């Protein structure tokens, strides 16, 4: 390759660089230390089977699509959970109370045809976020 060709190739690459997709390395998301234990309990509670993982991925895509994937941990694992949840059973009851309130308010999300309480969808999305990075 002569100098002129090498120069043109370099110029083209530089010009296109901002347009190329950037592939970020897979890494666990930043976790508020206060949430870490709650997320560990949540991961323990929710099963790691293909169907629920698939649904969790859909939920995560849904929340990323509407742009608030980073917000819902606070609602799910906010101050109420921090004081009340130490075990999987307590997490189960915590989720139940949230989903009861969602269903009572008609606050539902449809994923793959399944109509779920918003907190349920958020929970499986959160699990997906922490399982897949």
């Amino acid at each position, binding site marked *: 390759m002569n100098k002129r060709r090498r120069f043109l190739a370099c110029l083209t690459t530089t010009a296109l660089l901002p347009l190329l997709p950037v592939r970020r390395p897979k890494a666990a998301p930043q976790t508020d230390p206060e949430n870490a234990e709650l997320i560990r309990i949540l991961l323990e509670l929710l099963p790691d089977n293909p169907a629920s993982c698939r649904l969790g991925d859909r939920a995560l895509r849904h929340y990323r699509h509407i742009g608030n994937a980073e917000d819902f941990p606070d609602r799910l694992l906010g101050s109420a959970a921090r004081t009340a949840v130490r075990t999987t059973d307590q997490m189960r009851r915590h989720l139940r109370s949230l989903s009861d309130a*969602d269903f*009572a308010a008609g606050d*539902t999300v449809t994923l793959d*045809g*399944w109509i779920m309480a918003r907190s349920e969808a958020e929970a499986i999305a959160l699990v997906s976020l922490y399982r897949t990075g």
Partner: protein
Amino acid sequence: MFADFRELPDQHQVDCDLCIIGGGAAGISIAREFIGTTTKVCVVESAQEYEDATQHLYQGAPQPAAKRARSIEDGVHYGVPAIHSRLRYFGGSTNHWGGYCVPLDPEDLEKHDWIPDSGWPIEWRELSGFYPRAQAVCEIGPYIYDDRLWRRTVDAPYAFDAQYLVNRFYQFSPPTRFADRYGAALKTASNITVLFNANVMNIGLAANAASVDHITLKSLAGKSGRVTARHFVLASGGIENARLLLASNDVASRGVGNSRDLVGRYFMDHLYDSVGSLLVSENPQRLMAQYAEITPESSGHPLAKAGPESDSVMFQAALSPSPAAKKRNSAGAVALFIRGDWSRVDEGVRAVYEAVERDGNSASESYGSYLLDILRNLDTALPAVKNLVQGKSPPHLPVLFAIAEQVPNRDSRITLAGEKDALGMPRARIDWRLSEQDRRTFAQMPDLLAAEFGRLGIGRVHKSPWLDEDALYLYRGDFSRILEPGRHHSGTTKMAHDPARGVVDADCQVFGVSNLSVAGSSVFPTIGSANPTLTIVALALRLADHLKDRLSR
């Protein structure tokens, strides 16, 4: 008595007080009311028993190519050709009805801002008083359609929030085949003649078009005749009533009662389809006890009869959106049946039950109102949902099956086609049109059910893919292509206060024609979600009372 038109002389004329065109649920119910009176009644019926040639007089005209995928006349209904969606012989469609009996709801008769052309011209009390008598005609139990029917059969009914869901109860007729059950009484009545093998060709108006002078009859063999009467009742079904009025255009050029171009319009049918499936997280036996078909044992239940259990009247509960929910959703009425083979519970569900029980938890507290239990089931549930989409019914996923109201639509109509039947009558062309509001009527149900099933820990709802707005393109916006019609042809001679809004008045008399009434579901201004036979009979009894009074003057 029974008479055969074919055996009468050609050009024979029958003279009577009351001529009833059609011997189905409405016609037979009215005729029975006159047994033993001084009123001379003639019931005109095409055939005494089923005959192919007579049935094919019902064959509709082909649909335009653009709308041929699914239609009332050319489609397939429950695996049989659509021509059999109504039956043209003595007893009419009661010869194949399923026996579902349920009254309309009071609010079905009201005018609703969100449903165009809604509102009956009669008050609820003017109809409801006839239901108890109609119950007896349909051979069902007392007029009870509320949770008193669960007494002694359901211990702890689910408490759905009445702002969202309400229970709807059905009683099941044996089903009564009206000709078999009531034919003998009509045959032996000295003042009643049932004239078989006589097809009505024309409703002959007097020269001033203000009354009917006679009707013209014809047999398939070509014999002609006529019936004169003081009063005529047209009771030949939702399609045929309109066809006969439109085809009788020798005096009134647009047809009888059609000066406002309303005959045949507002054609409605119930819409049948699944709105989803239910992944049960509760003990399914509890749901089954509440929503399955129940034949009460003879122990003080209102529908129990003395003798063998099978003599009791079977009943079933369904779920409907509350009036408030329909208003919020700007939608029509729906009855939702939970169907499934309950003896074969999903393996995944069973595993969850067993695991919960092993852990020593009480079922009522722990069953899968929790997301955990639901997700554990999805591995087995998802393939089952795929089967459902492909038209197979997975026995372990109860199907949420809906009967939905079609709202009135002026452009959904019966017209006359150029083609003629074997007797030379123009065939009916049925242009069945649904609206976005009808889709919304279905679409409200999965969300209502999901919220209440979720709140009460019953399970989770999977919405049928066809209700997804993104799927609209699959049926090009016309979802009549994918739905099953209920074969409850209605609305084509609707009842109204004002001739500008309907074909018959509140007494079911054709506006402007003093001695012609219409009976049957063609007079329904709206259809609710109720199967129509009980209301057809109730309105027929109401008309019979009115005519008795009128003909005795």
